């Protein structure tokens, strides 16, 4: 069944093409259904390939197919090929699955938008690029997908580009990604230069069997790859774009910035684990240090955000930091496990937030929420499951995967473990804060700008529609009814909630038999997986400490926000809300001294580099004009030249012959 692997990216590509041609004619909602069907087809193909692979032995699970030679260029020969192995199929499965659910959600969310079909064009293109990223059999295909998702991210973030803030958010995302892409490209150059091929199988066989990379080269490659990953997966300092990217529609945030695109960096590093194994220790240490720092940094910022989506954005950055801690420590399985569970619960949280926003009529400030549990029961219920998962409460999936990551930190450095535990406690805290402010407590909505209270009796009972009911004075007042979302939107929530609850079963740590994910990913890791040497009792102790930490986080949040014992403003410091002013300082630098540097570089390029090139041309011209004077047209000068030439040749021969 593995030869169906080429179908997986073809479905969304087909969807993209069809929607490009006929999308406007199909209109709402058929365009959306077409897109959803295509992605579902992709999911089913991935399932087929997965089943076919699962039926084989562990060694036979790698399948490569090359469709055609894409770039035949001298020594560099890049083919358009797919690599179906456990890692890529795992990624493909959850990418297509979550994407299909989000497509369905988006049909409901984007209802009434004038650019309905354009949205799905971009979404399908995005899914295609992401699948090329994970299924490619060489670095260049991965890079193609890498750039593709970056471009689609730009399109989708600035989807409502009439507002300049959205457009510039999209630009920021794209530019920051590009800074990271430089690292990826340099890594590709280094790999090609040292190994001569960009294909994964060639690279791995060279590195493992022939030891083709020196430690210095491998270290350089790892650092460059990490720069690329940091750009895509929003690690410090390239995380700036992710909070701003919330300007896009919520399905975009869910799909791109929670479940799929931001995990590309983790995927890339996991895929290149043989190279990471060859590199010097400090480069992998760099990875987990930055991951740890990002996790803490973003968690502190999330504590003080008032926009529900920004909390989730910083939460994503923080959770990605967790994943990088695992990668840097060598526990790739933990990173992938956390990636999968994060995809489920973060998508769930985002979609739930979208549902809340939709129900609250595009209001995103949490200070205007409160007591929405009764108004939106399904949303609330699924959201609570996502909340418990991310906080690390057993038996939900987040607990198991986060525990693995904490184990990775413990294995690396005890101080790191403490810091990461603090980050986990803060995660629990801010997520509980979000849930309490949104669904519990007292309702803070129902006030319009004049500050008058609306009629409250009709609100709690009326579940379906908003009404515009004139009050007895004759003024028109809109009664504010947060309502539950339509089935098209809550069905994906339920599905994702189920997944978030049960995904822990993938890799339960109790015994080797239950560690399905670890066994499944074994052929991809080439034995580079670090196994933690800690006794079972230590692991149990760490798990218990993690549970206690989660409980502390939840309880302290309830202390502040439910029971109102502590004033929130003491915790929600303005500097935290501004994310330690890092973004602002970057902007100031770029606008001020940065601008001068860029102006100087432009001057340099224009004068020196262009001058050199033009100068070469002018030099040739000048020489030509001077030399032209030798063409006198006078026969006798030519004859003279010939005689002198003959004399010169004779002299040369005489000097060579000797006596």
């Amino acid at each position, binding site marked *: 069944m593995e030869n169906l692997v080429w179908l997986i990216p073809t479905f969304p590509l087909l969807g993209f093409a069809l929607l490009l041609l006929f999308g406007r004619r199909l209109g709402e909602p058929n365009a959306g259904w077409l897109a959803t069907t295509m992605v579902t087809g992709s999911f089913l193909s991935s399932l087929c390939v997965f089943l076919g692979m699962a039926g084989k032995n562990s060694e036979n699970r790698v399948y490569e197919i090359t469709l055609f030679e894409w770039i035949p260029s001298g020594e560099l020969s890049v083919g358009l090929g797919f690599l179906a192995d456990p890692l890529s199929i795992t990624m493909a499965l959850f990418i297509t699955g979550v994407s299909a659910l989000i497509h369905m959600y988006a049909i409901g969310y984007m209802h009434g938008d004038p650019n309905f079909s354009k949205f799905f064009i971009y979404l399908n293109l995005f899914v295609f690029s992401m699948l090329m990223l994970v299924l490619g059999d060489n670095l260049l295909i991965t890079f193609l997908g890498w750039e593709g998702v970056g471009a689609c991210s730009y399109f989708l973030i600035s989807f409502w580009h009439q507002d300049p803030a959205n457009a510039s958010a999209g630009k920021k995302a794209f530019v920051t990604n590009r800074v990271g892409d430089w690292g990826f490209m340099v890594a590709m150059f280094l790999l090609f230069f040292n190994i001569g091929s960009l294909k994964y199988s060639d690279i791995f066989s060279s590195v493992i069997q022939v030891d083709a990379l020196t430690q210095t080269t491998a270290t350089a490659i790892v650092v460059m790859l990490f720069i690329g990953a940091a750009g895509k997966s929003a690690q410090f300092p390239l995380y700036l774009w992710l909070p701003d990217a919330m300007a896009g529609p919520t399905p975009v945030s869910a799909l791109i910035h929670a479940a799929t695109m931001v995990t590309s960096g983790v995927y890339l590093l996991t895929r290149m684990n043989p190279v990471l194994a060859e590199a010097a220790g400090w480069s992998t240490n760099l990875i987990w240090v930055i991951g740890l720092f990002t996790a803490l940094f973003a968690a502190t910022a999330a504590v003080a955000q008032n926009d529900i989506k920004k909390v989730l954005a910083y939460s994503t950055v923080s959770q990605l930091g967790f994943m990088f801690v695992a990668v840097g420590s060598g526990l790739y399985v933990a990173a992938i496990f956390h990636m999968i569970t994060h995809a489920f619960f973060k998508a769930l949280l985002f979609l739930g937030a979208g549902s809340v926003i939709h129900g609250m009529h595009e209001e995103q400030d949490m200070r205007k929420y409160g007591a929405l549990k009764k108004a939106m029961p399904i949303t609330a219920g699924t959201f609570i499951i996502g909340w418990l998962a991310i906080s690390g409460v057993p038996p939900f999936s987040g607990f198991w995967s986060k525990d693995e990551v904490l184990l990775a930190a413990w294995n690396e450095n005890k101080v790191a473990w403490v810091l990461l535990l603090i980050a986990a406690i803060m995660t629990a805290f801010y997520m509980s804060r979000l849930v309490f402010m949104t669904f519990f407590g007292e309702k803070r909505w129902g006030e319009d700008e004049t500050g008058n209270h609306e009629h409250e009796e009709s609100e709690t009972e009326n579940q379906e529609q908003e009404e515009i009911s004139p009050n007895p004075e004759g003024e028109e007042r809109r009664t504010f009814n947060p309502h539950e979302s339509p089935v098209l939107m809550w069905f994906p929530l339920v599905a994702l909630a189920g997944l978030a609850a049960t995904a822990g079963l993938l890799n339960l740590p109790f015994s080797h038999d239950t560690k399905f994910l670890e066994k499944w990913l074994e052929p991809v890791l080439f034995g580079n997986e670090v196994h933690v040497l800690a006794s079972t009792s230590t692991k149990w102790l760490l798990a218990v400490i993690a549970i206690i930490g989660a409980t502390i986080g939840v309880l302290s949040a309830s202390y502040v926000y439910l029971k109102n014992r502590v004033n929130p403003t003491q915790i929600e410091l303005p500097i935290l809300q501004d994310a330690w002013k890092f973004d602002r300082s970057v902007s100031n630098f770029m606008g001020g001294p940065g601008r001068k540097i860029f102006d100087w570089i432009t001057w340099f390029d224009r004068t020196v580099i262009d001058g050199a090139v033009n100068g070469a041309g002018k030099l040739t011209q000048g020489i030509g004009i001077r030399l*032209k*004077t030798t*063409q*006198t*047209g*006078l*026969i*006798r000068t030519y*004859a*003279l030249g010939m*005689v002198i030439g003959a004399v010169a040749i004779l002299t040369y021969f005489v000097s060579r012959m000797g006596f």
Partner: protein
Amino acid sequence: MTFAMAIGTEYYLALSALLFTIGAGGLLVRRNPLIMFMCIELMLNAANLAFVSFGKEMSDLGGQMSVLFVLVVAAAEVVIGLAIVVAVMRRRPKASIDEVSVLRG
């Protein structure tokens, strides 16, 4: 009275070189096209002399054969060359070789 000196090939070659040089010098210095032609003939004759002297030394008839062909080609060259000179001189009777310099950059 006979000189017992044997005239070896080097004498002929020296003479040939001398004639050739005089011809080359004349080619460079004279401006009358016909005289330049005659200098060319001089150079060809010098070459012929060299050919024959080498042929004598190596006992090879090839030297003389070469001279025959050089002769024929020289004759043909003179024919065409003089035709060109006539064609040019008809239009500008007082021309020197330096005035035919239209082909220049």
